[in-house]
């Protein structure tokens, strides 16, 4: 009992010694003694809170070099006047909360950003609105941070003169959630960034990708929606990426797809929905990937395989009314396609075990023809094409003859 009392006394002491600095906050406003954010930060002691009052603050290169909280719950706009970075975070444990940040400078040499986090840890960036940006939030060699509820509405027109909404470079253990990212080059870009979690974001109308991984491993993204981007998500040269329960939709265009996998090993793609994309998943050079419980609905190509893919397993997926379910450009196949539901399956299940009694061949001769001569797409669903598809399915000559679902499901996977 006495010991407990001692501890609580000690705690009280610790807290009160910090009280003066932590709970006495610094206020910045147009009529306050401290009129600029920069000045507020300068005056602040570590772990102190700088509260900014309503108004437009025309400042850029705001350096945060100590662990503080920069906060507002009013309408505060920081206008960088198209000069350079607006906020730079150079210390650990920094929180930035509640700002609208506009007019980031653009440059062909430097990646100017609204908020740059440089070699810092344990940061929290939340409730931020970004307008007229070049790059939005840029993390360079940052760790263990969170970006939450950031709303980026870009005005990107050309890929080469626009930046990414959230850009990670050599940054690990970052949590990116509940953000809305519209009309930038990439919604979220990760390069050499491992162990990040990206969830519940909406990324749409971006010029290039909704989400883009390069050389990043063990990352996980789930419950995101990628809509009407140049292409939905590109995962390139990365390992052990977890992709769960995302929606990839309306990514339309001649080189557009819901998901691009290039040189990817050991990933899981589970429970995602691909709807009305020109290509659902475009696959190139991937090994040991599990595709499970995904739904591919009304895509041009549900899965387009461009070679060098080994030991991938597709099972328990729904393929619904895609123009082409699976397209291959070679006769080789080393992947397994068993126990999926195919809306194009016309077989029967006499023994009533839930699996069709005759195998289904998801690769059609016509998809091979279209790969070769794209203009032939105009003949899709014509009687002649049905006839050649049928004869090919009887005796495969151009498509992989071992590529089939030997146990096609009779009912959709729920």
């Amino acid at each position, binding site marked *: 009992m006495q010991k407990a009392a001692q501890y609580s006394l000690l705690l009280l002491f610790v807290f009160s010694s910090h009280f003066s600095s932590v709970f006495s906050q610094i206020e910045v406003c147009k009529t306050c003694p401290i009129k600029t954010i920069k000045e507020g930060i300068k005056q602040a002691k570590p772990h102190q809170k700088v509260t900014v009052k309503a108004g437009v603050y025309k400042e850029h290169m705001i350096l945060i070099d100590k662990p503080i909280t920069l906060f507002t719950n009013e309408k505060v706009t920081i206008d960088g006047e198209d000069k350079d970075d607006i906020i730079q975070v150079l210390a650990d444990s920094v929180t930035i909360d509640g700002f609208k940040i506009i007019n980031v400078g653009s440059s062909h040499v430097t990646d100017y950003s609204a908020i740059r986090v440089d070699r810092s840890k344990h940061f929290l960036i939340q409730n931020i609105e970004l307008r007229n940006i070049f790059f939005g939030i840029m993390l360079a060699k940052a760790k263990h941070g969170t970006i939450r509820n950031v709303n980026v509405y870009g005005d990107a027109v050309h890929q080469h003169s626009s930046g990414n909404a959230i850009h990670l470079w050599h940054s690990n253990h970052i949590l990116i959630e509940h953000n809305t990212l519209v009309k930038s080059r990439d919604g979220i870009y990760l390069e050499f960034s491992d162990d990040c979690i990206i969830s519940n974001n909406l990324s749409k109308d971006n010029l290039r990708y909704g989400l883009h991984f390069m050389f990043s491993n063990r990352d996980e993204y789930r419950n995101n929606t990628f809509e009407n981007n140049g292409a939905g998500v590109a995962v390139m040269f990365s390992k052990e990426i977890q992709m769960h329960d995302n929606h990839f939709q309306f990514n339309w265009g001649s080189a557009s797809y819901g998901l691009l996998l290039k040189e990817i090993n050991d990933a899981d793609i589970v429970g995602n929905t691909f709807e009305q994309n020109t290509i659902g998943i475009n696959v190139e050079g991937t090994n040991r990937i599990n595709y499970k419980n995904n739904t591919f609905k009304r895509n041009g190509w549900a899965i387009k395989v461009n070679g060098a893919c080994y030991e991938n397993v597709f099972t328990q997926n729904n393929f619904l*009314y895609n123009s082409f379910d699976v397209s291959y450009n070679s006769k080789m196949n080393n992947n397994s396609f068993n126990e999926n539901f195919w809306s194009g399956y016309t077989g029967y299940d006499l023994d009533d075990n839930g699996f069709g009694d005759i195998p289904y061949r998801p690769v059609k001769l016509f998809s091979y023809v279209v790969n070769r*001569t794209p203009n032939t797409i105009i003949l899709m669903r014509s009687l002649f094409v049905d006839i050649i598809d049928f004869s090919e399915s009887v005796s495969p000559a151009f498509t992989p003859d071992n590529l089939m679902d030997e146990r096609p499901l009779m009912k959709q996977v729920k």
Partner: protein
Amino acid sequence: MLKILKYSFYDLIRSRWSYVYLLFYLILGFVLLFLNNDLSKAVITLMNVIIILVPLIGTIFGVMYYYNSKEFTELLLAQPIKRSSIFIGQYLGVALSLVMSLVIGLGLPFVLYGLFESSAIWDFSLLLITGAMLTMIFTALAFNIALYNENKIKGFSYAILLWLFLAVIYDGLFLLSLIIFETYPLDKFTLIATVFNPIDLSRILILLKLDISALLGYTGAIFNQFFGTSIGLFSALGMLLLWIILPVWNIKRKAQKKDF
């Protein structure tokens, strides 16, 4: 002309064949829905029926009616009625009764299965419109063939050949030429070749609804202009209309010159 249309129409409505045709579509509609219980999938299957079977039935029915109603035609020719009215009236009688069978036969099952609450209603309406237009086109073509051929057997053979050509052979040749000349820019050729076959045209009209995502996968500028916008829909419909008007005009022209 309206009187002729009326009599031809009544004549057909009372004939066994109209019922067979109607019954066929009714059964087809119900079976499709019963097997799939899914409107969207049924619409896809129906597309195949519409672009293959409807032209076939239109052609055969058209030729058959023309030859079978020769007596009626001769009777009419002695009456103070314009020739064009006689033939166009008869043509419309056949075409409209076929269209009616199609719309009722397919529409009824789908309406009973809750079409009006379904999002497939637009796709379905487009399907029916296309089917109706194909019926009009192929009946008109059949009338042309029959007008040029007194010999029934010849007329029937040409009609079947026409169907076979437009439904299958044309696409085969089309596909071959696309593959053979794949190194050339073929956008224009592709569009033009499509326009010259009403079956292809209708198929594409329906594809614009069903497979738009795949169609947009192509780089050709003309392709995207055509498919990406409503211009595609309207120009395809316009071309189909032209496919009706031209043969009908020729029926009128030929009928004016023909001896009976």
